[in-house]
């Protein structure tokens, strides 16, 4: 039985299942930078609109402007989880490590935006109604989403071997995603049973067009920012995987 010759590093990480050894990350980086620039521009526009264009809301005052950070963050947090869920399902099916890389990148950003929602909500709530926390359906759903994200990361890190960890995390992603609509329904029903339903309408009683426009721009800015950061993170994850494979060069 002839012994195999020592494979080259390229073969090594190709064999270790990290995906095509020729997949170039230069394209990813270009897109990430382009989106980053766009995000920065849009963000500046949004900031201007938030502070100078949108009118001060009648009942809640200046503090209502935190809404322009709260709502886009919520949108981004849930969109991120949608990406996590889709890529997790894809990863479980196809086992392509790139799908897992997208999922973890989206998850890391998602949990950050979820945290922002959970911080801005109470800040606004305290000033507007005097309560640090209200069990408003959407806020409650976001709180549970935060824990699902945390579960995702714990599973990723705690498994006996990294491949299994990725698979476990992906399972959490899929189960979480399927559960979110059910949680949403249940939490809504739950609050509807409450004698004094608390209606959180940070957008105020009237839907002033200026408010809506500002919100849209802010949404766009956050979305672009998310995708830009996600692409950077994805590139980083792919590099990390390759570096790991190269470090353990076959003897």
């Amino acid at each position, binding site marked *: 039985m002839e012994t195999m010759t020592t494979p080259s590093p390229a073969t090594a990480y190709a064999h270790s299942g990290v995906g095509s050894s020729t997949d170039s990350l230069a394209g990813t980086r270009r897109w990430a930078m382009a989106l980053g620039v766009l995000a920065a521009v849009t963000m500046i526009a949004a900031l201007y609109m938030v502070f100078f264009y949108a009118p001060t809301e009648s009942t809640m005052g200046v503090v209502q402007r935190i809404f322009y950070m709260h709502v886009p963050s919520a949108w981004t947090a849930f969109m991120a989880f949608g990406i996590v869920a889709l890529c997790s399902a894809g990863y479980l099916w196809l086992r392509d490590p790139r799908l897992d890389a997208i999922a973890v990148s989206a998850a890391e950003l998602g949990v950050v935006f979820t945290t922002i929602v959970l911080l801005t909500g109470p800040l606004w709530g305290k000033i507007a109604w005097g309560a640090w926390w209200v069990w408003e359906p959407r806020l409650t759903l976001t709180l*549970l989403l935060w824990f699902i994200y945390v579960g995702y990361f714990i599973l990723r890190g705690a498994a006996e071997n990294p491949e*299994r960890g990725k698979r476990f995390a992906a399972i959490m992603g899929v*189960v979480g995603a399927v*559960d979110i609509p*059910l949680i949403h*329904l*249940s939490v809504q029903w739950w609050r509807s049973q409450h004698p004094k339903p608390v209606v959180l309408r940070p957008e105020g009683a009237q839907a002033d067009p200026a408010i809506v426009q500002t919100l849209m721009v802010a949404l766009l800015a956050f979305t672009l920012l998310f995708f830009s950061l996600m692409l950077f993170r994805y590139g980083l994850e792919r590099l990390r995987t390759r570096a790991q494979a190269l470090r353990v060069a076959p003897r």
Partner: protein
Amino acid sequence: MTTASEPREPAIASKASAHARDADAWDAPGASFVAQVWAVARKDLLLEARSRERLVSMGTFAVLVAIVFAFAVDPAVRARSIGGAMVWVTVLFAGTLGMGRSWALEREAEALTGVLLAPIDPGALFLGKWMANMAVMLAVEALIFPVFALFFNLGFQGSIPALAAVVVLATAGFIALGTLFGAIAAHTRLGDTLIPILLLPLLAPVVIFASAATQRLLVGRPAGDVLSQLKMLGAFDLVFLFLCTALFGAVMEE
């Protein structure tokens, strides 16, 4: 191929019948999915019936939680208005306690590897475990409900069949996710402590609908009033029984 020398088999039949025995095994169609589910469930139930380990630990824990509630709840509060809540909190905590044990059994002599060697559908393994866990959990619940009724003087006025339906449906979904994540947790460094962290956010719908329905039945509202909760619990069960069965193969893979 020359025939081998006389076999030194202790007291068994001749070579011919040994061949027949083997061919028998090779030609058999194999166990059906249902048969495998039952084999796994039966095995777990046998083990539990013999050691009663989970029943005792979960049952004891549940009674102690009831005592803690008795101490902790302010006397001004009517226990009757939080009966549904107390019971389901206890069920959840006792359940997550017992979930890990079911998989610990498999790790003792690495029995799980032996099972996975067999041509078993991972879904069958999951459903078998689920069935056994359901039986154990329902047995513990059969203790929890009367104990709470006793400790807090909760005269149950509602429809017993409706309550049974709530309990069964809520437990089914709880145990489905619990069995899946119990298996996952068994293969992590953190082990059983991970189970409640993973499960509780996901079980929000179960808690919400089950305790609301139980509370309504407790105060004597008609069974029709809990129909919508039963439907939601049923939907939860269908979705997750299917999903967990489908995902189980990915958990078991090494």
